[in-house]
């Protein structure tokens, strides 16, 4: 995955977290992961469709999610209720939206999907044949990680449906 897709997300995350919750974040070392992701306490999943396609997800520890939601809503929350969940989903939405605006300025138009929330540790999310770049962000409120499984689109819109199921690797076609 090219770095040019990655930077907009890191920048957007930094800007949004600073503006919305006023929390400074340090970026940890990037890594490339091909296996499935074992989820943290809370995960926001957003897809991109367009010139750049793929999946972005944000993993939050419970403490991080609670502090962010509390700070966004301006009240101290003790548990991740519906409102807090929707706040965290909105945060993922705003970061991804902002990143897609940055991407479009570099010539890649894409649209983002509504966010999906996954609550609870230990589910596995597989992005299949998309390698996934992991961007860990650390702050004094807890861990946040951004996972980017993106690529330049190889198919366009409705034509996707006309694709046949591809020959799986390692299977002989007779």
């Amino acid at each position, binding site marked *: 995955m090219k770095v040019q897709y990655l930077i907009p997300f890191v920048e957007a995350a930094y800007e949004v977290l600073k503006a919305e919750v006023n929390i400074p974040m340090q970026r940890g070392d990037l890594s490339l992961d091909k296996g*499935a992701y074992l*989820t943290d306490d809370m995960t926001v*999943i*957003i*897809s*991109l*469709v*367009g010139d750049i*396609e*793929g*999946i972005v997800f944000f993993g939050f520890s419970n403490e991080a999610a609670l502090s962010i939601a509390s700070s966004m809503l301006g009240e101290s929350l003790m548990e991740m209720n*519906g409102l807090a*969940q*929707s706040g965290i*989903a*909105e945060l993922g*939405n705003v970061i991804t*939206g902002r990143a897609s605006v940055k991407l479009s300025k570099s010539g890649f138009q894409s*649209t*983002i*999907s*509504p*966010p*999906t*929330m*996954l*609550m*609870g*540790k*230990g*589910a*596995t*999310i*597989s*992005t*299949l*044949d*998309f390698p996934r770049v992991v961007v860990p962000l650390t702050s004094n409120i807890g861990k946040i990680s951004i996972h980017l499984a993106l690529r330049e689109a190889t198919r366009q*819109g*409705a034509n*996707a*449906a*006309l*694709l*046949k*199921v*591809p020959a*799986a*690797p*390692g*299977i002989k076609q007779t």
Partner: protein
Amino acid sequence: MANVKFMNPFVEAAAEVLEKEVSVTTERGALSLQKSSMTSDEITVLLSLVGQVQGVVLYGLSRATGIKLVSKMLGQEFTDFDNLAQSGVAELGNVITGRATVKLSKEGFSSEISPPTLIQGEGITISTLDFPRVVVPLKTELGEITVHLALRETPPGSDSGRNFVPVSIQLK
């Protein structure tokens, strides 16, 4: 609102794709409209729709059904739900959804689909918060696939996805 008119294209597409890829006939079970969370299956394939229709489509199935489907699809026996099998099941969701969007676009709702994401975990619950979703069980001789549609017509002039969380998935 989750709209039932978006449902038929998915049911038709699923039946056609399952017939072609794994040669099974599909029977539609009783529809329901759900708001509350429900226990989902072991494997969930998630795809998003973006365009004049927006939201999320989920395909839930058991691991056993997943293995049977890919075994038939790829013409080799799988015993384990490995990467290849995961990719096969995800692709099945992809092809069904893609075909459904072609049908939807013929009815005047054009939309694009995201690549599939596969979620696995014991005792996952899926909820759509206060957004009602249409749940369609599809019965085949290889097992049951549950299709969850949390879709709505995109309000004119709205930012894609803003303040709209169609699905929340919860682990026990």
